[in-house]
């Protein structure tokens, strides 16, 4: 019991004193996961739109496949990427294994399915009458698509935020592609796993708290987004009429 208590107290001390190593690990985590989120979003949003708007053979199967990949184990993604990125692998020449760039690539691959899937649902959630209305108002196919995607903007944004949540909290890719190298590829999750293994509880607890704080911020952002939605409907009920 005293181990937990003292561990906790020392952890708070590490955070409050802005311990350089703790801060460096947290910053690297944020950097890698944010980068992966941005790259995944630039791919997932157009891809989701494409899958939603274009009819093609096997569309249902593609969507089911994407949904299956929502819960792909991170270690499986890690394994496959490892095989590709290792010296003898097809992408070995780029030397990405055990680098932050490799981790960004890994997390991007990891979160593209969930982001794409949620973008498809987000766009699919836009009233079908909206696209009819736009076409009827003289929109070209492209103008209509842009407008429908805009209409789904809040739901798309929450898809992106959820993708970030999955990226920052995963450990498999970070461990297998990053390798948990101190001052180079050590991120929050891998550090917690390692430091706990060697009995450095205060350090692990400190990183755990930071990770939870990040999760909290993500939840707050999500709530702000959705309350943006509900604020509009509240105006509908009681807002001024002028």
């Amino acid at each position, binding site marked *: 019991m005293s181990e937990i208590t003292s561990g906790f107290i020392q952890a708070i001390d590490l955070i409050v004193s802005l311990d350089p190593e703790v801060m460096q690990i947290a910053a690297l985590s944020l950097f890698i996961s944010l980068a992966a989120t941005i790259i995944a979003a630039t791919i997932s949003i157009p891809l989701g739109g494409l899958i939603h708007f274009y009819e093609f053979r096997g569309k249902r199967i593609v969507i089911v496949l994407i949904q299956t990949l929502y819960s792909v184990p991170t270690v499986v993604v890690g394994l496959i990427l490892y095989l590709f990125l290792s010296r003898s692998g097809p992408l070995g020449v780029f030397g990405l294994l055990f680098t932050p760039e490799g981790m960004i690539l890994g997390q991007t691959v990891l979160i593209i399915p969930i982001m794409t899937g949620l973008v498809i649902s987000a766009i699919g959630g836009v009233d079908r009458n*909206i696209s*009819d209305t736009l076409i*009827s108002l003289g*929109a070209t196919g492209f103008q209509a698509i842009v407008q429908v995607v805009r*209409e789904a903007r809040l739901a798309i944004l929450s898809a992106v935020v959820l993708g970030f949540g999955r990226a920052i909290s995963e450990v498999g890719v970070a461990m297998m592609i990053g390798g948990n190298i101190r001052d180079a590829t050590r991120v929050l999750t891998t550090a917690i796993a390692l430091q706990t293994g060697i009995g450095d509880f205060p350090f692990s607890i400190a990183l755990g708290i930071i990770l939870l704080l990040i999760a909290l911020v993500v939840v707050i952002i999500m709530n702000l987004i959705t309350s943006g939605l509900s604020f*509009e409907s509240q*105006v*509908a009920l009681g807002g001024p009429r002028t």
Partner: protein
Amino acid sequence: MIRLEGISRQAGRKTILESVNLEIQGGEIFAFIGPSGSGKTTVLRLIDLLDTPTTGTITIDGTDAAASNAVRLSLRRRMAMVFQKPAVLNTTVSGNVAFGLKFRKVEKSEIESRVHEALDIVGLLNLADRKAVTLSGGEMQRVAIARALVTRPEVLLLDEPTANLDPVNTDLIEKLILAIHKKFQTTIILSTHDMIQGQRLADRMGVIINGRIAQVGSIHDIFYRPQGRDIARFVGIDTILDGVVESNEGGHAKVSVGAAVFEVISPHNPGTKVALFIRPEEVTIALKDGDLPRTSVRNQIQGTITRMVPFGPFVRTTINFGSHLTALVTRRSADELSLAVGMPVIAGIKATAIHVLVDGV
């Protein structure tokens, strides 16, 4: 002018529309009337070039709409459609109204003045900056109309424009439609399941039943001379009697319906099987033992009241004379005559008020 030739539309194996041939003139108000699910929305969507027909051609001012996507877009941009359930986009009211102009890449200052004009016409200037999703149903419908209007369409398509509205808003929208027609001479094509609304708004009507255009004509034609039993029932003719022409003297024919004989105006020869169509408001009721009014009412049919159903300020009264006949009596006269089920009465119908069709239609 819009011409539909041999149009059919199938969704999967289901035929929604079949062999539709129709011409709609520039500047007229044309109403498609018909029961729910008869294909009215499908026709409007085809005319607006949102969907493509399975067979047949649509030409607009002589241009075949199927020519190319570019042709479809440019033709579609001369029209605008208001849907039954108005969908507003998640932006302000003026933002919603501006879409059609933005898609056409109209100058910003021009957009502003035309949005202002359109909102003024529908009476929503005071709500210009409101979030459109916060509006009431009637207001949303007016936004949808303003949004369609702002592009100055030559053809305005309205799908059941008042189906989801209360009577006050319905009245408002109907007045608005007529005002728009008067101001811009827009060709207006609307659909409604409410034949009275069709009557209030349209120059001509097309009755759609089960995916076919059953009859096209003036309101008077359709109400008083329906070309079939389905149409007759839809326009509120509850009495359809099967009979045989007994004699015909210069167009004044006697038709026997069971034991009763009706005098009608009809060219058909004796022996012809016919159907008689009688609108309920054309039937008057007198007491059997009272003095028969000396009128030009040629048909005085004796019968017994079998059913009385309140219908607003009227009472639908069914009379059995061997067959059944329905009369629409005002509540006041029903009270004055103390009409009641089981009472013997005389139903009076003018010969000219009976519409006759050769049976088998």
